[in-house]
């Protein structure tokens, strides 16, 4: 799970700006070109949130990936960030090339959003471009002085490479399982599991459920749910986090288990996971 600092958290569900009406899809599309920049920004978020798959919405969001008007004091591109995030949710492959270009943007958060969304869109043409963000390996994967983030959005890049089944990236990802930042570690472990199906990686995430930091425990839960590592079910149910997080992670395991079989009847392991989920209601 990608780390959201406070700046980003604000962007994830922006307040409705003053003067903004509740939107319709047509208004939101039109607002992407509104002279009021805060309305553009809100409209981009809104189209992703409500998954407006209209081709006019996708076109307007793709155009917003090149926006030059909305800039932060540090040179960031807030509208591009929101447009890149929204396009990941709209499942339209036309967004892929624009998102790939965003991987070279000077704004870290644009690169991060694009890397995440490319993983969600599932089109493997982006794999070499994602891999290029790992250039220099763990040695250059350091914090940018004065900023709360690393040189590249490693967590998002690695997670997407794992989700895309990019086995060609395996040797590049492996060193990140020992990165100094725990969340980058977990992302690499999660991807390594997806690329190799080796239980040693699943077990490392199970170990992470014992972390002293509740945020890291939640991250490990969510990673285990995302990879559907079914041997973790009991450890998830017993971990010291809120029931809703545990329930959601177990749902990931159950669905993975259900998809791995064509049997009509429920497998014994599926029934065991259901039993654990019932105790968390």
């Amino acid at each position, binding site marked *: 799970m990608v780390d959201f600092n406070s700046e980003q958290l604000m962007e994830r569900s922006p307040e409705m700006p003053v003067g903004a009406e509740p939107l319709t899809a047509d208004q939101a599309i039109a607002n992407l070109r509104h002279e009021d920049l805060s309305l553009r920004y809100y409209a981009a978020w809104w189209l992703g949130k409500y998954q407006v798959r209209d081709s006019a919405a996708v076109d307007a969001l793709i155009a917003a990936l090149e926006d030059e008007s909305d800039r932060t004091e540090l040179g960031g591109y807030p509208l591009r960030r929101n447009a890149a995030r929204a396009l990941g949710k709209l499942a339209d492959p036309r967004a892929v090339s624009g998102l790939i270009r965003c991987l070279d943007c000077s704004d870290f958060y644009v690169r991060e959003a694009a890397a995440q969304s490319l993983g969600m869109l599932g089109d493997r043409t982006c794999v070499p471009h994602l891999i290029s963000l790992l250039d220099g390996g763990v040695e250059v994967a350091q914090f940018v002085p004065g900023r709360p983030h690393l040189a590249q959005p490693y967590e998002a890049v690695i997670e997407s490479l794992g989700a895309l089944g990019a086995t060609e990236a395996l040797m590049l990802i492996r060193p990140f399982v020992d990165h100094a930042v725990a969340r980058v570690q977990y992302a690499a472990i999660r991807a390594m599991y997806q690329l190799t199906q080796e239980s040693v990686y699943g077990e490392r995430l199970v170990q992470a459920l014992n972390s002293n930091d509740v945020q890291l425990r939640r991250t490990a839960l969510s990673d285990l749910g995302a990879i559907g590592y079914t041997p973790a079910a009991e450890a998830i149910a017993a971990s010291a986090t809120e*029931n*809703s997080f545990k*329930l*959601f992670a177990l*749902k990931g395991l159950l669905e993975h288990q*259900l998809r791995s079989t064509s049997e009509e009847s*429920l497998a014994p392991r599926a029934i065991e996971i259901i039993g654990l*989920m019932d105790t968390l209601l």
Partner: protein
Amino acid sequence: MIDSQLQALISAIEQADSPARLIGAVRALAAARLESGIPTLIQALGYNNPGAAIAAVDGLVQLGVLAVEPLLEQIDGYNYGARAYAIRALAAIADPRALEVLLSAAATDFAPSVRRAAAKGLGSLQWQYLPAQQCIQAQVEALNVLLEVSEDSDWAIRYAAVVGLQGLGESAVAPKILHAVSDRLHQMQLADGDLATQARAKFACDRLAAISNPQLPVYC
């Protein structure tokens, strides 16, 4: 004697200076199974310490019917975390006096965790403590709320409704209740938008089918 024991256990909770000590102190009070300790156990549901809250729920459930009235009176309208734990305790004790609280929590509480606990609890009440006629009426009320909750937009709330419906089906005192439960569960098994909820509904249908067509002698 009991009073001084209670006082010592309560002061240990009041003076706990770390989350781990608080959990230990609540566990000790829970283990003493003192009726007079109930109000303190209920307070512990709201300390924002999940370990302490779980220990307090265990203690309240052990005290069973004695804890029902105090729980119903002290249920916290402001702290939804505490309310979810109180609903879990009431659901586990399963005393039908909790019916009204469970019905309204399942139908209208704003906190998803409270609604999930209540929906599950509506399926597991000890209906046999109610007079026959009242029992059918109570089950119909539970059924109607669970059917409504089973259409919620949140998968986890629908999942909890399935668990509640299964329990209600297993203890149904009238065929029309069992039929309504089975119909809805079959529908959800085929058409719910969430894969895990569909699977849970399938499991519930399998269980209800096994009860109405037992393949083995029931009393073996």
